[in-house]
Each structure stands twice: as structure tokens, then as C-alpha cells.
């Protein structure tokens, strides 16, 4: 039993390590920013996920208690990774201004990064209250 | 380990000093932040280094690292945070009032570095 658990944990660790490495290697190797973005977003996430799983398993097997903390972290990372990725992507799009390389939205408007949002905006006067304005 | 910590502190201090010798507010502020990082680690290290001996009460532990310096560092971190916040705002204010973010007031050349 222990043995199997050991193998499982070791396997998880090795996989995790590899993916972690891949993520950062991709960051170096891939030629374009957009492509580079793929690597860490996915691989690194999985890598750290693997480590966290391994840790859970480890504490379960060797300390007899089930530690849910790692799970929490994993979830958090997986929730936030896409957002981070999207923001960096947008920053890249904005900085490199490659609007014309992009496909049309097909719904009439342009891509959000290159257009002010379509909504009624009004100046701030009197809008703010609370401690900000006394 | 001691050598690593000491050299790290030294590097951060050097960088901080170099930055506070720049002539616009922003690098000076960053430099001050660096100095406070450096001094925080300095205080911490002045309690000597210890691995895997957190100052959390634990009957099974082989010993504890110095908790006092840690408390001091915490206080120092918080205070320097407050100070940084203030000087950042003042620098911004000075820039808005004057139109230049030079920190030296010896030559009042308007708008530069923008």
C-alpha cells in the first residue's frame, strides 16, 4: 500500500516537475509573445497542481490527515490563470497594435482592446461619495 | 547560507543607495523601498539564521529561531509601508504642483524626463 502510494506520489512529482519545466522552457523557446503565453498558463498551472496533489497525498499517507489547503490553492490558480493570460494578451495586443492582423469579430463591432466600450459614460462629478470625498 | 544572505543584503543596499542618488523622485522612492527591504532582512538576520525552526510553539521541535527580530521586522515593514505611501503621494503632489518630478530643487528646470 505504502509502496503504491509512494509510486503515485513520486509519479505526480516527476510529472509536475516536467510540466513546470516545460512551462518556463516554452516561455524561452517560443518565438512570439502570444505563443509564449500558452506555455506557462497551462503547463505551469498543471505543474503546480501536480505538486499540490502530491503534497495532499503525502500528508494523507504519512501524517494520516487529509489536508485540503492544497486543493484550495490549486482551485485558485486554475481560476485565475486564464484571467492573467487574457490580461497579458490584451496588454500585448495594445502595445503591439496588431489590430489589422486579427480576424474580424463578425458581429459588427471591433475587439474590445481597440475600442472604447459601448456604454453611457458620464463625468465623475458628484458620482463619488464615501470617504473619498468629504 | 550566511554568505548568501549577507551578500543579498549588501546588493540590495547598494542598489538602494544608487537609486536614492538619482535626481528624479521616482527612482529615489524605489531606492528607499529597496533600502527598507535590505534593512528588514538585516534586522531579521541579526537574530541569526535558522532553517525549519519557525517560532511557533511546538513540543516536538528541535528549537526555535529568534522570534523577537521577526516581530521587529514586522513593525519595521509596516512603518516603512506607511512612510512609502506618504512620500509617493507627496512626490506625486510635488510633480503636479511643479510640472517636473526632479527631486533636487537647485535648478528649477520645468518638465523633463516625461
Amino acid at each position, binding site marked *: 500500500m505504502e509502496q503504491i502510494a509512494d509510486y503515485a506520489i513520486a509519479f505526480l512529482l516527476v510529472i509536475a516537475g516536467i510540466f513546470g519545466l516545460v512551462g518556463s522552457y516554452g516561455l524561452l523557446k517560443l518565438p512570439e509573445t502570444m505563443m509564449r503565453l500558452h506555455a506557462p498558463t497551462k503547463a505551469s498551472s498543471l505543474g503546480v497542481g501536480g505538486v499540490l496533489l502530491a503534497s495532499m497525498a503525502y500528508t494523507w499517507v504519512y501524517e494520516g490527515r487529509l489536508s485540503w*489547503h492544497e486543493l484550495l490553492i490549486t482551485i485558485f490558480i486554475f481560476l485565475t490563470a486564464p484571467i492573467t493570460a487574457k*490580461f497579458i494578451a490584451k496588454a500585448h495586443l495594445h502595445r503591439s497594435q496588431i489590430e489589422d492582423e486579427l480576424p474580424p469579430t463578425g458581429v459588427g463591432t471591433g475587439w474590445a482592446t481597440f475600442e472604447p466600450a459601448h456604454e453611457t459614460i458620464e463625468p465623475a462629478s458628484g458620482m463619488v461619495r464615501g470617504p473619498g470625498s468629504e | 547560507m550566511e554568505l548568501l544572505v549577507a551578500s543579498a543584503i549588501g546588493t540590495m543596499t547598494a542598489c538602494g543607495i544608487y537609486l536614492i542618488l538619482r535626481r528624479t523622485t521616482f527612482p529615489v522612492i524605489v531606492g528607499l523601498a529597496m533600502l527598507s527591504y535590505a534593512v528588514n532582512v538585516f534586522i531579521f538576520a541579526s537574530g541569526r539564521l535558522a532553517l*525549519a525552526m519557525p517560532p511557533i510553539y511546538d513540543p516536538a521541535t528541535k528549537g526555535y529561531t529568534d522570534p523577537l527580530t521577526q516581530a521587529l521586522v514586522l513593525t519595521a515593514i509596516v512603518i516603512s509601508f506607511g512612510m512609502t505611501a506618504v512620500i509617493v503621494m507627496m512626490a506625486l503632489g510635488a510633480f503636479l504642483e511643479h510640472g517636473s518630478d526632479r527631486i533636487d530643487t537647485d535648478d528649477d528646470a520645468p518638465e523633463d524626463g516625461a
Partner: protein
Amino acid sequence: MIAYALTFAFACFGAALLMNLWRVFVAPGVPDRVLALDTMVINMIALLILYGIGAGSGVNFEAALLFAMTGFVSTVAYAKFMLRGDIIE
């Protein structure tokens, strides 16, 4: 057994971090550097947990969680700064 695996994982994530550092030094633009920083945080968390396994102490959990949180926030902040200038508008 686990020890070897741990060492291997340590090595991988350590190497990963060095690569990130390299990316910070040489990158076409700030977005890439921010990406590198973000990855750094992730790898750090991994190392932290590995260290926890190695030392058999779960004390590092809060740190890891907080790293994740702050890493996310600061990455978003940097990006939003590049996009809009004002990060709280």
C-alpha cells in the same frame, strides 16, 4: 523513492525559475516580463509546497495561498497599467 522524485521536482522548478529570470533580463517588452514574473510566482508556490513536503511541515500553506493571491493581483495590476494607465478607474 519519493526523495529522488522530490529532488527531481526541485531541480525542474529551480531550473524553471532561472529560465524565468533570464526572460526577465531579455524580453521584447514589458508584457513578456510580467508573464515571466507571473510564472515565477507559480513556480515559487510549487517550490514552497515541495519544501513543505521535504521538511514535513504544512506551515507554508498560507504563504503559498497568499503568493497565489498577490501574484494574481499584481499581474493584473501591471497589465491594467499597460492597458489603461490608471489601474483603479
